[in-house]
């Protein structure tokens, strides 16, 4: 038997705190063989990153090893001297960190950073041999303008290019083990798909073992052979990817899989199942199974002690006393019953609530004028969820801010309930300000850390509602309950709440004004999948009960199609395609929509996805003043010169929607669907 590249043996690790808390990783045992890809999934706080850093023996300032050891190719890392560790890190073991912008040194040219790795980890001296090695590394990660990139500083590259440079930095010393810590979280889906493909190819070529840390189960399915589910520092389930995704046996794994919107969930109109609660408090760990407080199957036996990992199928281990029955049962587990709810489309009325006409937002920068939004038209009906989807830099945030009145558009009109409101929020009538509310991406930034939750909800009630002051408190509690929080939270400060709870408060604050339209700018992007599902349910519920219309902006097509009645797809400031969710998900596609769908990782089994090859985006910024189609430079279906010289016509293939493309209706109609069900 060959030695594993990486092995954790009974590894227990804690951070020294006052008062002492439970270990962050508990008796962790795992191994990765040569060339193998092991994925580690779990909610944030489950110990994934701690584990990754430990694989390089980076303990942090307060980290302390309690028990066990880590071996890399049979060498125990615990015994290594600082000098030996330095040789190991970046040499035998390399890491691609999460955020490329903060992981590359901003004041050192890319070429220099690559040379540095070789300087420390190879016998090469500066000179032609080293130059060649650096060039080879860039070519390996498909960076072609090598000369320019070597001379660039990191900020001169796009996000995808930066991430590829980081991969080159990690791979240039030909490591045995590559650790990927959420390698694509900050990237657009189309870039993400390309990067994952690239890593897969390099891994095959060099036989590198990969430890992949991610929260995205779609990536796991596509990319790895084995998977470990980590919960509060414990392995709760491990085994081959196919086995785990198709026959999950631990209630937690089942929960995680269920909260991801299914590919056809917009047709079923169901609430998403959620996992109640959050990770256990490290100051007060449950005595028995750590998942018991959140588990729908919990029974008295569960509190007797932490269950041991047991084998339920070949190489499939589960830490649950009910594992065997659960593995074979296909019952969907959830703490909320996923009962079909009234079809949300009923809530949509025919009259137009918001109309955006020829809206454009231009920014003057030192490099010239940037067209963030370039002539966008759409309408949102009363009670409708309108999804706006697009990658970073497509202008969706500028659009949201214009509608919200935080930004005055350069041209175009915004009509809200037949009034022209194309101006700064302060100049709008107070009633319009009440009726349009916004929920932001990061609740950490949208709630004032110095205000209690009560104070935060009180203000909009005071300003906008007709309630008598003595009833303010009742109204606040009612609002909190409508977002599944309670009066306990009144006197809390935002930092005492979890990310999901904070976002609920932000939603409650928007609803406090009794709005007609709520603009949600990436409202679930900073949240775990388990929390995300709860927020999506909440939004749908207020659409149904309060007849609130939502403009739901996201880069995640999975989420958008779950919640939206209609979807608008934007690319570099312009609309490519708009139509109902069902129309958008089936052919004819705009080539960009096709690419987005093709790049979206799918977890669900029994769905075949057609691959779409899309070149990397070359531009960093939003659209310019192109006369033609802005997608032309990346379009796999490019017709010819006409794409670059003429604005694409509206093919009007969708009911009340648009599809701007030079492809003829016949060509568009001949497109194959992206998703097909396997029999």
């Amino acid at each position, binding site marked *: 038997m060959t030695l594993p590249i990486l092995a954790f043996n009974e590894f227990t690790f804690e951070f020294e705190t006052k008062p002492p808390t439970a270990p962050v990783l508990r008796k962790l045992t795992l191994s990765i063989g040569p060339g193998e890809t092991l994925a580690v999934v779990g909610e944030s706080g489950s110990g994934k990153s701690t584990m990754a850093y430990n694989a390089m023996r980076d303990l942090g300032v307060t980290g302390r090893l309690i028990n066990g050891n880590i071996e890399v190719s049979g060498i125990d890392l615990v015994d290594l001297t600082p000098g030996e560790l330095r040789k190991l890190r970046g040499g035998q073991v390399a890491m691609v960190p999460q955020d490329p912008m903060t992981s590359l040194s901003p004041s050192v040219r890319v070429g220099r950073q690559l040379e540095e790795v070789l300087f420390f980890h190879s016998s090469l001296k500066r000179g032609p041999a080293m130059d060649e090695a650096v060039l080879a590394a860039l070519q390996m990660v498909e960076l072609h303008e090598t000369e320019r990139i070597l001379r660039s500083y990191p900020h001169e590259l796009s996000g995808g290019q930066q991430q590829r440079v980081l991969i080159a930095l990690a791979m240039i010393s030909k490591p045995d083990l590559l650790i990927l810590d959420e390698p694509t979280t900050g990237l657009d889906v189309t870039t993400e798909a390309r990067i994952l493909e690239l890593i897969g190819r390099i891994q095959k070529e060099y036989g590198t073992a990969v430890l992949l840390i991610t929260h995205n189960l779609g990536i796991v399915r596509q990319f790895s052979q084995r998977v470990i589910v980590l919960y509060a520092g414990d392995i709760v389930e491990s085994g081959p990817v196919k086995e785990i995704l198709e026959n999950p046996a631990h209630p937690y794994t089942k929960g995680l899989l269920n909260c991801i919107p299914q590919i056809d969930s917009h047709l079923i109109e169901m609430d998403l199942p959620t996992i109640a609660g959050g990770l256990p408090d490290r100051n007060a760990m449950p005595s028995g199974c750590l998942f018991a407080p959140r588990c729908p199957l919990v029974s008295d036996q569960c509190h007797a002690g932490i269950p041991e990992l047991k084998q339920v199928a070949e190489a499939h281990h589960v830490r649950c006393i009910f594992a065997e029955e659960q593995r074979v049962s296909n019952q969907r587990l959830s703490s909320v019953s996923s009962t079909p709810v009234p079809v949300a489309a009923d809530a949509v009325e025919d009259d137009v609530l918001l109309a955006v006409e020829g809206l454009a937002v231009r920014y003057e920068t030192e490099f010239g004028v940037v067209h963030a939004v370039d002539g966008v038209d759409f309408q949102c009906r009363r009670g409708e969820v309108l999804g706006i989807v697009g990658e970073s830099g497509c202008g969706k945030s500028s659009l949201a801010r214009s509608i919200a009145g935080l930004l005055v558009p350069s041209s175009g009109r915004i009509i809200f309930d037949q009034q022209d409101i194309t101006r700064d929020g302060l100049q709008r009538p107070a009633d319009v300000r009440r009726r349009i509310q*916004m929920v*932001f991406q990061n609740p950490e*930034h*949208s709630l004032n850390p*110095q205000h*209690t939750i009560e104070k935060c909800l009180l*203000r909009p009630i005071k300003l906008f509602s007709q309630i008598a002051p003595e009833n303010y408190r009742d109204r606040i509690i009612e609002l909190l309950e409508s977002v599944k929080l309670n009066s306990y939270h009144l006197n809390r400060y*935002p930092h005492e709440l979890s990310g999901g709870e904070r976002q609920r408060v932000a939603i409650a*604050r928007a609803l406090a004004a009794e709005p007609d339209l709520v603009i949600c700018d990436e409202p679930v992007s900073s949240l775990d999948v388990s929390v995300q599902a709860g927020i999506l349910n909440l939004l749908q519920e207020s659409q149904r009960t309060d007849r609130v219309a939502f403009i739901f902006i996201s880069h995640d097509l999975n989420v958008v199609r779950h919640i939206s009645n209609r979807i608008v797809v934007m690319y570099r400031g312009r609309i490519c395609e708009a139509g109902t969710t069902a129309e958008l998900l089936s052919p004819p596609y705009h080539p960009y929509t096709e690419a987005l769908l093709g790049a979206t990782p799918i977890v669900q089994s029994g769905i075949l996805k057609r691959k779409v090859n899309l070149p990397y985006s070359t531009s960093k910024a939003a659209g310019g003043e192109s006369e033609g189609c802005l997608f032309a430079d990346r379009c796999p279906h490019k017709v010819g010169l006409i794409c670059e010289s003429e604005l694409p016509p509206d093919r009007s293939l969708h009911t009340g929607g648009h599809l701007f493309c030079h492809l003829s209706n016949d060509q568009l109609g001949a497109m194959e669907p992206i998703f097909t069900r396997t029999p």
Partner: protein
Amino acid sequence: MMGSAKWSRLTSRQAFGLAFGSIIITGLIFLAIFGRWLIPYDVEAMHFDHLKEFPSSEFLLGTDRFGRDVLSRLILGTSTTMLIAGASTALATIFGTIIGLSSAFYGGIFDKIAMRVIDVIIAFPTLVFAMFVIGVLGSGIFNGIIVISLLFTPSIARVVRSAAISIVVLDYVNVARMRGERTLYILFYEVAPNLYPTILVEASIRFGMAILVTAGLSYIGLGPPPPAPDWGTMASEGRSIMFSNPWPVFAPSIAIVLAVIGVNLLGDGIGALLVAKPSRASGSNVK
């Protein structure tokens, strides 16, 4: 319940500092108000048989070269020193905060003009600027306060502006704008509370410097006119013969150090009490 939650925001170091700082500052305020009835000797009385003496049971902190009791002068000096330093720091903090916050919030041309004016004031050497203003206004305690607050407003404004600039772009400020809140509400209810620690720490540093600037002004004859002795003046007067007669320099120097430490500890402690969670802008992200 809320009260205990607030106290738990302090680290043990901060709690100790807060207690220590409040004792010092309360004591100094007490001396400043009631000192004139507590002094053992008249401050101007010269005891010619006790020149340049070290501490003794008769003169607890010794005497200066004119045979004046150092302890009495020190106690009486408390009120002048605390008044000038305290009032000028308070004024500078108030105006500096208002200018800094508005500069960060409005940005654009207002910000540019405010910052350039501030640059001009900061570019002047402290004493030259002080001489210029006092030359126009005349010397005295009140004018001293005006000069020092004029000197300190710019630096406080700048510190507040740079901290506020990262707050005014946050989404909770956007939410307040969308609600149609008035600028004053946004500045003082949404932005400022996040900056209290920054402002208080800056103010306590300024307080210490105000005492030193007062001394500097007195040294070149632009301070509060005699007989009101302030600590800075006492220390600088005795400086030339401090090797043969150290106590007239020691005593006020130690008093200045104690006052500055007291104000710093108090400022740090109150700052920690006032904020629910130090925001990143405050620079003290306590884990």
